[in-house]
């Protein structure tokens, strides 16, 4: 039985190669993976390629249901490093092939469910808040000076 | 000697058959298109809102699910209560039950905010939720009725028929208890939060299910030219009358109980007197058209013997049932939540006011699509499976009953009335 499965596996691999070769002829380019910020990822690349969805799934349950807010496998942190803009361009959205996640997911034809609710881009902390009223912290909206307002005025950024 | 009841597929080659097939097919496609539209645009394009969260699709879906369990009754009467004269109808009864449930569930699922996450509903369970139980009750119902059908249609299954029939009967009672309790166990809303809703839904299901069964049986025999006995019909329509009367009784008890409690006075005034469209639907559609009119028809000495009138009575019960669901589901939500008993409340979020709702075209298309799914499934099933007896004339049916040791119990003129068993005019199968 195992032998048969092995043979089937080989046949499947051969077919996949053929299909890939055919694909190359039809000029489906390999995904161009956008460059990330930072020196290295939180896990080795091959571990990430294979298991990123497991890390994210684990993290999402830990964070939402238990209130654990470690950063290592957090989607926010992924996006913070990996979703980067080319000079002079805005950050790519998830429906663009320049978006880190979409680049591979489009190629692999795997639908991402994350960005139905999550923002697909990191917060742009460098951007002056006044230019983007949607991210204006609530403290700055109030009429009186509060601790929050002071923090905002001091750091130009809402406390996390 | 006991004459043999012979089951045979209908031919299904007439233009009439294909016309029905095409009609139901188009309605199914329209329903799917409507669901796709609602999902891509978001539900703001429907009539629903944050005040009326379950709209027209739920009216159709809950009706279909309630009717599904009721449609199984004819089979239950035969195998659980041992009335052999209904035995030849049991196969259609079982298939119709599964088809109606499938139609209702399709509507329910397609109206979800995230129907693409159906797999989540199948893998994550909160066992305190009646909805979670219902997922098992519905799938279990389909499985049990499928086994029940096998015991009826396969020689090998025959010994298990009685057990399967009993299991299916108990299961369907639990299932409708679950459906009624979806509303009955909601403490938040004035129109719900009543233990009577579970048994009331069971009684509704008897009436709605039998009405749909008659609406399938009559054309299935009339349009194919197969004989259908007047005595059998007389018994079925009398049964429908009893179920409709029982439904009215439960509705009366529900409202009288509420009227007695000062706390519920205003919600009752809303439904019974001042609720505008809900009051009209309650009195005109649910009570008059869906209750009193069919009772008058089926127990009328002349009208009650005519097939067209029996079919009309059954159709009225279905319309009344949809009206009942509209009043229960949408009327129950339209009445504002009582946040501060005895006080007047107002806000920017419709507190203290009757919520507005108007069914939108996509919602109606989805609901009708669910009915079409059920009917299309039945139309296909009776063509490919031997579900319908070739003949259901009175001598044959009564012989079945006699062989099982039952008295005819019917009026003797029933045999004379069997002249009506002659094929009704119309297209042949």
């Amino acid at each position: 039985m195992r032998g048969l499965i092995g043979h089937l596996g080989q046949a499947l691999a051969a077919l996949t190669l053929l299909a890939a070769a055919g694909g190359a002829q039809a000029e489906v380019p390999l995904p161009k993976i956008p460059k990330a910020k930072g020196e290295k990822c939180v896990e080795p690349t091959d571990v990430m390629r294979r298991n990123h969805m497991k890390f994210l799934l684990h993290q999402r349950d830990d964070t939402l249901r238990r209130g654990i807010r470690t950063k290592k496998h957090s989607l926010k942190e992924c996006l913070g490093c990996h979703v980067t803009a080319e000079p002079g361009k805005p950050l790519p959205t998830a429906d663009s092939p320049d978006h880190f996640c979409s680049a591979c997911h489009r190629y692999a034809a795997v639908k991402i469910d994350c960005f139905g609710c999550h923002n697909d881009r990191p917060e742009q902390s460098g951007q002056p808040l006044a230019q983007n009223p949607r991210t204006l912290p609530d403290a700055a909206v109030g009429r009186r000076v509060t601790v929050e307002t002071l923090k905002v005025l001091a750091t130009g950024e809402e406390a996390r | 000697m006991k004459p043999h009841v012979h089951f045979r597929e209908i031919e299904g080659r007439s233009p009439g058959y294909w016309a029905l097939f095409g009609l139901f097919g188009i309605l199914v496609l329209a329903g799917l298109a409507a669901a796709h539209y609602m999902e891509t645009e978001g539900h703001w394009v429907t009539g629903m809102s944050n005040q009326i969260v379950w709209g027209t699709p739920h009216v159709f879906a809950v009706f279909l699910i309630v009717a599904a369990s009721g449609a199984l009754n004819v089979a239950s009467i035969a195998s659980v209560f041992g009335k052999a004269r209904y035995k030849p109808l049991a196969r259609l009864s079982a298939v119709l039950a599964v088809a109606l449930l499938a139609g209702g569930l399709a509507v329910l699922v397609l109206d979800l905010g995230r129907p693409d996450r159906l797999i989540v509903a199948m893998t994550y369970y909160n066992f305190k939720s009646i909805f979670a139980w219902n997922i098992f009750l519905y799938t279990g119902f389909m499985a049990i009725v499928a086994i029940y059908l096998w015991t009826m249609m396969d020689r090998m299954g025959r010994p298990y028929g009685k057990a399967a029939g009993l299991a299916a009967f108990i299961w369907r009672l639990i299932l409708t208890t679950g459906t009624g309790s979806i509303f009955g166990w909601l403490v938040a809303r004035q129109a719900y939060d009543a233990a009577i809703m579970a048994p009331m839904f069971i009684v509704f299901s008897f009436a709605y299910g039998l009405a749909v069964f008659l609406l399938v049986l009559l054309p299935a025999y009339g349009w194919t030219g197969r004989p259908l006995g007047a005595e059998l019909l007389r018994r079925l329509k009398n049964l429908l009358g009893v179920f409709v009367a029982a439904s009215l009784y439960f509705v009366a008890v529900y409202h009288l109980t509420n009227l007695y409690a000062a706390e519920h006075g205003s919600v009752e005034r809303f439904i019974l007197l001042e609720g505008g469209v809900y009051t009209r639907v309650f009195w005109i559609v649910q009570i008059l058209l869906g209750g009193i009119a069919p009772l008058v028809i089926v127990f009328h000495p002349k009208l009650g013997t005519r097939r067209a009138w029996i079919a009309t009575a059954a159709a009225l019960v279905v319309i009344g049932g949809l009206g009942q669901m509209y009043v229960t589901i949408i009327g129950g939500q339209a009445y504002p939540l009582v946040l501060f008993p005895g006080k007047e409340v107002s806000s920017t979020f419709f507190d203290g006011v009757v919520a507005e709702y108007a069914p939108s075209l996509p919602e109606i298309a989805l609901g009708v699509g669910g009915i079409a799914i059920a009917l299309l499934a039945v139309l296909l099933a009776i063509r490919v499976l031997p579900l319908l007896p070739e003949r259901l004339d009175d001598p044959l049916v009564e012989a079945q009953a006699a062989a099982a040791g039952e008295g005819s119990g019917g009026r003797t003129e029933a045999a004379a009335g069997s002249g009506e068993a002659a094929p009704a005019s119309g297209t042949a199968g």
Partner: protein
Amino acid sequence: MSGTDTSRRRFLAGGAAAAAGLLVAPGVMLLPVARARAPEEPASEAQRWGLLIDTTRCADGCDACVRACKTENGWEGHGRPATDPQWIRKVKVRDPRTGHTQSLPLMCQHCRKPPCVDVCPTGASMRRADGIVLVDKHICIGCRYCMMACPYKARSFVHEDVHDPKPHAPRGKGTVESCTLCVHRVDAGRVPACVEACAAEGNGAIVFGDLKDPRSEISQRLARYGGEEIRADLGLDTGVRYLGLS
């Protein structure tokens, strides 16, 4: 992460919060009500977060809390009141016999026995160990049974596409949402946006804190002045209490 490191971090967070308590705006005393947990520390049953809303201090016509929540959590609508979300709303209550009126904010009451959690088929509607009731949108199928079950109409169904949601408050079409008690802020040792806005407005009608800590401001106020639940007859043991109802 070693134990000492954790406690040091906690100490620092506590110190920061205490410092925040000293920096007061005119007429407003911001007490260190919440202490940030270490990120790896789960929410605990040792706490139960709640709000105490003083209706006598809640100004009629003021909607600072609503605006603050909208900005914080990004649930700006589309100008369609019937289908737009409403995590928090101002409700006017009038006694028809006496003409006495009150104004109060109404949001998710964070019940200890929440009907929305009971009825949810998938477990998406959930109550965190520290009492915050949330929707796990990862497994919400949009059936809206929770909205049928909630006696406060606290939940909204997302009827349309959401553009550019806040990273700390993800929200998406086809799922249900409601007040999160600003869980992202609470976990960071801060108070909910509505509380902050109400204080900034000078009303200070909302107090946030730990109902299980007898030394907390909310517990002390409850002990001194009492506090009522909306629809207390339902026995849901809400985490949001009101002063000056009835």
